[in-house]
């Protein structure tokens, strides 16, 4: 299991692995937003949490098809399926690797980009906390979408269409957490829901994703 994780991380950081592309995309998005909505603090501040969450979500989406597609092309997926690892475990590890290579850099960069968008200082820790709790669910749901579309030639667009609706609850509770924390100082309810969704997704989605992978392997 650990071997698979280190291999995926190593592949992501080597040439052609696409590590850091997500953060670059995130930066571009945050740069473009003021051009679209105006640079006034009064315009940026209220939408900053939403933009940051959307940016993280889209940056995460960009790299989803890599989770299984490359391994499927070169035959590694067949070999992993015959390995003494349960396929559910393989799915979970690959989603974890995706989160470490995409989600964590985004979380680290988010406060910085928050400054660009005039996110109030008191919202910063909540931004990081909400992303930290919410993004694992994004990676895991993305792995499910990637497992469903792995055999398809033009799977990228379909992957977005399938996965984005699944992101809605996480997005809602993630941004609501920041909003309520700043407005009233009590983000308990969205925090609990966000954590609940992530826990449920991490516990159950590997089974659905592994089932989809088995269908696509045969």
């Amino acid at each position, binding site marked *: 299991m*650990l*071997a*698979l994780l280190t*291999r995926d991380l*190593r*592949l992501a950081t*080597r*040439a*052609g*692995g696409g590590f850091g592309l997500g953060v670059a995309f995130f930066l571009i998005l945050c740069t473009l937003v003021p051009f679209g909505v105006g640079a006034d603090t009064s315009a940026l501040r209220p939408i900053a949490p939403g933009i940051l969450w959307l940016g993280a979500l889209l940056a995460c989406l960009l790299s989803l098809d890599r989770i299984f597609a490359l*391994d499927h*092309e*070169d*035959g*590694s997926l*067949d*070999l*992993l*399926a*015959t*390995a*003494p*690892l349960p396929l559910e475990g393989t799915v979970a590890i690959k989603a974890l690797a995706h989160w470490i290579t995409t989600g964590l850099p985004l979380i680290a960069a988010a406060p910085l980009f928050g400054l660009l968008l005039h996110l109030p200082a008191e919202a910063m820790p909540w931004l990081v906390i909400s992303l930290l709790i919410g993004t694992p669910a994004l990676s895991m749901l993305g792995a499910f979408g990637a497992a469903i579309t792995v055999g398809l030639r033009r799977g990228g667009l379909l992957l977005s269409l399938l996965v984005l609706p699944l992101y809605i609850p996480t997005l809602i509770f993630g941004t609501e957490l920041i909003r309520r924390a700043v407005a009233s100082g009590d983000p308990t309810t969205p925090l609990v829901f966000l954590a609940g969704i992530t826990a449920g997704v991490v516990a159950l989605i590997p089974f659905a994703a592994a089932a989809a992978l088995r269908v696509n*392997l*045969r």
Partner: protein
Amino acid sequence: MSLLAVHDLAVSRGGLRAVEGVSFTLNAGEALILRGPNGVGKTTLLRTIAGLQPATAGLIEMAEDAVAYAAHADGLKGALTVAENLRFWAQIFGGEVGAALAAMDLEALADRPAASLSAGQKRRTGLARLLVTGRPLWVLDEPTVSLDAASVARFGAVLRGHLAGGGAALMATHIDLGLEGARELDLTPYRARPGRAEKPAGFNEAFG
């Protein structure tokens, strides 16, 4: 004792049975070569025994985690070196890398990234993975594709060593690997007859 026993197996592709009623056993030290024209279902049968797709009917008896599967794709990562590629599979399966590198004459290439290898060298790395798995039953689908004569001979020797060490091999190949006493099984007579089956293999049979 037998490593693999197949009873009355039917496998299907594209929602239709390809072959049915296939039975054989494979004991330690034995090799079985599948024959038959293109499209008869050799690959499908091998994938089914490797556990990559469900059998449509019949029974496959073997120990858990006994199969090492090698097919057209080698499962190599171009960004990793040959040794790193093999080491990964060694960690997954719990095997040994050094001997495998030596056996397939890959020691000189061990630190080269897999992306820079020729097709034949990639193939050799892919086959070295079989040794790394330490599994007794090798399921091989055209293992000698893109190998030159010397490499074929080398792989033949590796395969004989595997059989002598109590392993077994089930393969589809057109090339003589110099395996003495290897049995052959022609799948042509087992080609599935169209018609209604009790349990349809897929939509094409359910609506045929």
